[in-house]
């Protein structure tokens, strides 16, 4: 089984978010980048399936050279090889077109992604890729198993419940917990990752359909009002009469 796992390179969850150039650009200064946490579920599950069924796991990132440390990390966790499409990802549509071009060429059985990137919070690339390729996209899935060599069984979350879906290969799915326990690289993995192939390819001609013009930050809270624990019930009155949310 050939599995493609798409990973996005995002600011660490604890990063302070700031903007530069008159709030027109995200300030990468001092920001640590990680593999998008949801993508770690996709990657680990892909490796588990490969271990059980044989095959290969390829990781794909659409991004600039600064994503390479995290691509190497994915190789250290257990992917076999990697592809980086050398482009500044302008928007999700552009990214989906690049992924589609690679996926079509590689003939993968399964294309796994994370549910959502934690930087641009789009929750869209997987469904776009499914539509562009004309194959099912099951998102967000929290369970993924093979029924037989050509059929997978997934459980996906919907508001207030879940759906059980069986699809034929090939398909796209996005992962969320509790699909598996994300793995961290071990020493041996880190050593072998250095020599695993990482291919850099130039982007397919593709357009973006949106322009990011400006950023802003939410207003700061005016401060917390403390209520004595003995009279904790007071807070309920304040919520009704002062905050007016009850």
């Amino acid at each position, binding site marked *: 089984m050939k599995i493609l796992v798409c990973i996005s390179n995002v*600011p660490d*969850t*604890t990063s302070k*978010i700031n*903007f530069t150039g008159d709030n027109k650009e995200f300030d990468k200064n001092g920001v640590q980048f990680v593999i998008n*946490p*949801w993508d770690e579920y996709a990657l680990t599950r892909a490796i588990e399936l490969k271990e059980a069924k044989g095959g290969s796991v390829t990781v794909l990132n659409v991004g600039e050279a600064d994503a390479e440390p995290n691509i190497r990390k994915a190789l250290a966790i257990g992917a076999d090889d990697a592809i980086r499409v050398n482009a500044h990802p302008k928007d*999700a*549509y552009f990214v*989906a077109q690049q992924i589609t071009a690679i996926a079509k060429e590689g003939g993968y059985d399964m294309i796994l992604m994370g549910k959502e990137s*934690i930087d*641009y*919070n*789009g*929750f*869209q690339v997987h*469904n*776009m890729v499914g539509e562009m390729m004309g194959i*099912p*996209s*099951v*998102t*967000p899935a*929290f369970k993924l198993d093979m029924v037989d060599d050509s059929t997978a069984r997934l459980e996906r979350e*919907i*508001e*207030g*419940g879940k*759906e*059980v*879906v*069986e*699809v034929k290969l090939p*398909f796209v799915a996005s992962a969320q*917990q*509790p699909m598996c326990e994300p793995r961290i690289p071990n020493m041996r993995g880190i050593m072998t990752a250095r020599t695993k192939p990482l291919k850099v390819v130039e982007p397919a001609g593709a357009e973006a*359909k*949106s322009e990011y*013009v400006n*950023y*802003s*930050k*939410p207003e700061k*809270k005016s401060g*917390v*009002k*403390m*209520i004595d*624990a003995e*009279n*904790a*019930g007071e*807070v*309920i*009155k304040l*919520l*009704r009469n002062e*905050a007016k*949310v*009850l």
Partner: protein
Amino acid sequence: MSVLVFVEGLNGEIKKSSLEAATYGGQVAQAMGTSATAVAIGDVNEDALARLGEQGISKVLYDADDRLKQFVADAYVKVIAKAAQQENAKVLVFSNSNIGAAVGSKLAVRLNGSLATNVTELPKMDGGNFIVTRGVFSGKAFADVNLTSDVKIIAVKKNSTDITSNAGNTATVEKLSADLTDAEFAAAPKETVMQDTSGGVLLQEAEIVVSGGRGMKGPENWHLIEELAKELGAATACSKPVSDIGWRPHHEHVGQTGITVSPNLYIAAGISGAIQHLAGVNSSKVIVVINKDPEAPFFKAADYGIVGDALEVLPKLIEAAKALDK
């Protein structure tokens, strides 16, 4: 040219998040000097559809195909694409739900449109621009995005639109059918299982959420969270470790790697306020924090704080909530 809104049903009624999308679509239509049409599929009754007039919808196209009572992505996309074509829709509005975002993304490809998900404000239209504001960096920032294609697709963040209700306005309801074939059902769900939601309140749509963390000490104390939630008509939630150790089901876990909520009121008991937890709750309008440690980071994000043992404080809140006239 018109605005098309996709509305989702649940047990015959229209979901609250879809009433928000309808309101948003009605307001966009008004600003553009055109009308708003809704498209509904599956499990909604026609009275509920007609009442969409209250949100500024003038017409509803309804596909009552029984096979669409459950979500079938390719079929839904085909129905909505047909409605969009029929209405010559230039703006399509969805709720940013798992269903809404999925069909919205697929339609962006099929209709060659620009998509913005997680949108928090009405568009600014001037000089040929169509700029929407959307939440980015997991609640830590907003971005203004210009949608440059002819067709614009917007998925509206839950609880970011106040639902209008102009009593008495009704929408006309027309049947719609999209000639579905077996191909659209190839990836149809085998089975749909709905949870027994606490008191019938869907966490993602709840206006009030009562949430517990590891400081609640164990599942045997959760009756306090549930009782307060019941008194306030709230949904219940928890922190990640609480669902990881199995005190609560995973679908209640909020935060960066769980569900994002944006209720009017979020009450957190025994939760430290780690940045990954805050990422899922920081767009709540009012936050109440109960923690025995006065240095807990959550107090920095709170509007009201109580330093104390949650197991002693919650009963006081329950008592006060019971005394409120409803």
